[in-house]
């Protein structure tokens, strides 16, 4: 009983205690919970981090190796290209040197050959000199001719004058105009007068017989109306009797164009030409020149015409093995096994034939 009373006395305290404990537990629960969470989280985090670190290290190693490998590959490629570029530059430079020399030589020898140009210019000056001399000679010759002509014309004029003025000749009694007594010797005109024959009246040029004839004096020179230098000889003074045909008709008949018949117009070998023309036309229109042969077995044993491009002295090059199927029976082995024995059999047959021994013996023997 006492215990009960004790217990009962303790009961409110118990309740309180219980309540207090629950509350404190409650209070601490959150705290403890949080603490546990914290510890767990730290630990888990630690574990994960360790794991990640481990993974990182591993990955680093892998990547290290891989990148090293790539880099070395790339480096090798770079070195190869750099080397290649160096070589090409070197080759280019050498090629430039060669080309420089060659082009300079070529241009100097053939395109802008200085010495040839010099010779050419010298030749031109020499030629010019020759041409100038020749032209000068030509001009001098022409001058001389002109002078001669002028002189001759003057002479003729003088002669004509002298002949016209023949009456001025001096006589014994009366001295002429050109033979003055105060002169030492007679004037040259006087001498001319003495030499010349008097002009007869008939030779006066006929001026007025061209009334009926019209010419354009104002615009053309005299030579137009008498075009030929010498006058034509008179044709007996009798006009030919008409009636005359019309000039246009005469000309038309005289200059009638040729109108040949078809036979004349065609050339002599026109038939052959026409035939050849037909042949050529047919040849042109044909696709190929092979004769049509109606027998079909002709085509069976046709020889293969190899292409010119791929044939050489040493046989034909193949087009390529990849696409065109090329059959080389000689290279087949499967046949050769049989043929090998066949060959052997043939040999044996020969031996058998000539030595007339049995096959088996021969087989055993060889």
């Amino acid at each position, binding site marked *: 009983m006492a215990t009960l009373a004790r217990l009962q006395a303790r009961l409110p305290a118990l309740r309180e205690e219980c309540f207090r404990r629950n509350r404190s537990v409650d209070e601490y629960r959150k705290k403890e919970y949080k603490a546990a969470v914290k510890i767990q989280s730290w630990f888990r985090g630690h574990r994960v981090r360790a794991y990640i670190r481990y993974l990182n290290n591993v990955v680093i190693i892998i990547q290290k190796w891989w990148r090293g490998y790539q880099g070395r590959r790339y480096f090798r490629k770079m070195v190869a290209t750099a080397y290649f570029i160096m070589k090409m530059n070197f080759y280019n430079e050498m090629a430039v040197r060669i080309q420089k020399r060659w082009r300079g030589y070529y241009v100097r020898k053939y395109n802008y050959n200085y010495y040839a140009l010099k010779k050419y210019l010298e030749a*031109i*000056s020499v030629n010019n000199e020759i041409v*100038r001399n020749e032209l*000068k000679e030509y001009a001098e010759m022409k001058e001389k001719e002109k002078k001669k002509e002028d002189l001759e014309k003057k002479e003729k004029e003088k002669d004509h004058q002298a002949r016209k003025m023949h009456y001025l000749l001096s006589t014994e009694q009366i001295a002429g105009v050109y033979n003055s007594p105060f002169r030492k010797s007679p004037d040259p005109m006087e001498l001319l007068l003495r030499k010349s024959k008097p002009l007869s009246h008939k030779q006066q040029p006929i001026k007025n017989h061209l009334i009926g004839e*019209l*010419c*354009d004096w*104002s615009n053309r020179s005299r030579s137009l109306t008498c075009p030929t230098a010498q006058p034509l000889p008179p044709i007996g003074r009798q006009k030919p009797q008409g009636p005359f045909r019309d000039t246009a008709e005469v000309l038309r008949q005289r200059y009638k164009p040729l109108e040949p018949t078809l036979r004349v117009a065609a050339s002599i070998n026109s038939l052959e030409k026409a035939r050849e023309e037909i042949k050529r036309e047919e040849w042109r229109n044909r696709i190929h020149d092979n004769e049509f042969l109606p027998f079909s077995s002709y085509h069976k044993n046709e020889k293969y015409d190899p292409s010119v491009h791929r044939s050489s002295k040493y046989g034909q090059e193949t087009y390529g093995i990849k696409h065109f199927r090329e059959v080389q029976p000689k290279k087949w082995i499967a046949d050769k096994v049989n043929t090998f024995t066949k060959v052997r059999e043939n040999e044996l047959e020969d031996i058998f034939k000539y030595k007339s021994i049995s096959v088996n013996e021969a087989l055993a023997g060889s």
Partner: protein
Amino acid sequence: MSQRQVLQVFEQYQRARTQFVQAVAELASRSQNIETLQNAGVMALLRPLLLDVVPTIQQTAALALGRLANYNDDLAEAVVKGDILPQLVCSLSEQNRFYKKAAAFVLRAVGKHSPQLAQAIVQCGALETLVICLEDFDPGVKEAAAWALGYIARHNSELSQAVVDAGAVPLLVLCIQEPEIALKRIAASTLSDISKHSPELAQTVVDAGAIAHLAQMILNPDAKLKRQVLSALSQIAKHSVDLAELVVEAEIFPVVLTCLKDSDEYVKKNGATLIREIAKHTPELSQLIVNAGGVAAVIDCIGSCRGTVRLPGIMMLGYVAAHSENLSMAVIISKGIPPLCTCLIEENEDHIKAAAAWALGQVGRHTPEHARAVAVANVLPILLSLYMETHSSEDLQVKTKKALKNILQKCTYLPALEPLLHDAPPNILKHIVGQFSKVLPHDSKARRLFVTTGGLKKVQEIKAEPGSLLQEYINTINNCYPEEIVRNLMLCSCWCSCALGMFNKFAVSFITEDCFSSYLITV
């Protein structure tokens, strides 16, 4: 009795008509009478006389009409308006040769004035009858017909084509072969008039085989014939390379060169024209001419002539030199530059001077060697003075400027460039200073000369915009010399430009002389 009286009346009338018509024809041959005749209404009176019964009156009337129409184009138009042409054309085919000559003369006189009148002649169908006349026996008729056709074809290419379509060209080629000189002349002149308009017409003439005959006639001694023949060949050759080659193939070289020595001025001119038309097409043709010695002949020809006769020769040299530098050098060594230079100085006409300037520009523009040859002949100051002269025509100025530019861009001969520094205007000065800036950095003797002749001083006086090409050139030149000299000269030029007193100028120039001498010793 009365019959005789009646006949007498008619005879009187006929005599009166004959007298009238002959008198009119005589009067019409003198130009001072023609206005009076026109005012007196001679056209209306002559027209019925054309239809007269008596042939001589017809012919004289036609002759009188022709002379009147020849005088001026009003009268020619009156002839056309008076419907005289169809009548003439009809009777042209029927009548005798004197009438044909007179009628062809009328047609020619009408057709020569203007294209419209010539068109009127073509429209009344005169061309066919004229072509028929070309086939006549009488050379005078042929000549009159050919002359008329030539005057019609002269105006433009349509009329030429009409003449060709009428079938005149083969007959003209036949006419050329006739022995009469006058007929040859006229036929050659007609062919020249036909072929000058277009390449097709020229080709038609060539196809008729004219070139061979024309080429043979170059050797003929008659001067007027040579003129026409050379003119015809040059009109054919001018259109295209093929035609020029055809002309050359007729073996005119070197015969044509003798024409350049002829005593007649126009033969020389036409010969030079022919050579020019051939030379201008391709370098190969020019080469051919040079190899045949044509350049020397043309140069001599230029030297011996005066005035417009020189012009084709000058242009020929220009064309030859323009093609390539070898040909230009050939012109130079054939002593081509002195005649061109004298042309520039002597001639009065601007267009000849312009042509000479152009030719010199073509000669000197290729390489420094060429420019030097041109500069040594003292051409540049002349060109500059022509450029600067106010009287020069625009064309002359443009051409001299171009020639100067072309030569200066290649000229490295400094003694010739020096005098130009002082007078040149800014746009030319740019090129001169540019040339100096190219040569001076490399040549020490030239630098010394440049300073002593006062060129450097002049360069300092030039005002240029900073950043312009001229300024760059000036800087390049200044960089060739040590600082003090340049500064002194700049000061000197500034003082000079400020127009200080004489004393200061002298002092400065003395100072600069000392500097120069010391500089020259060090250089």
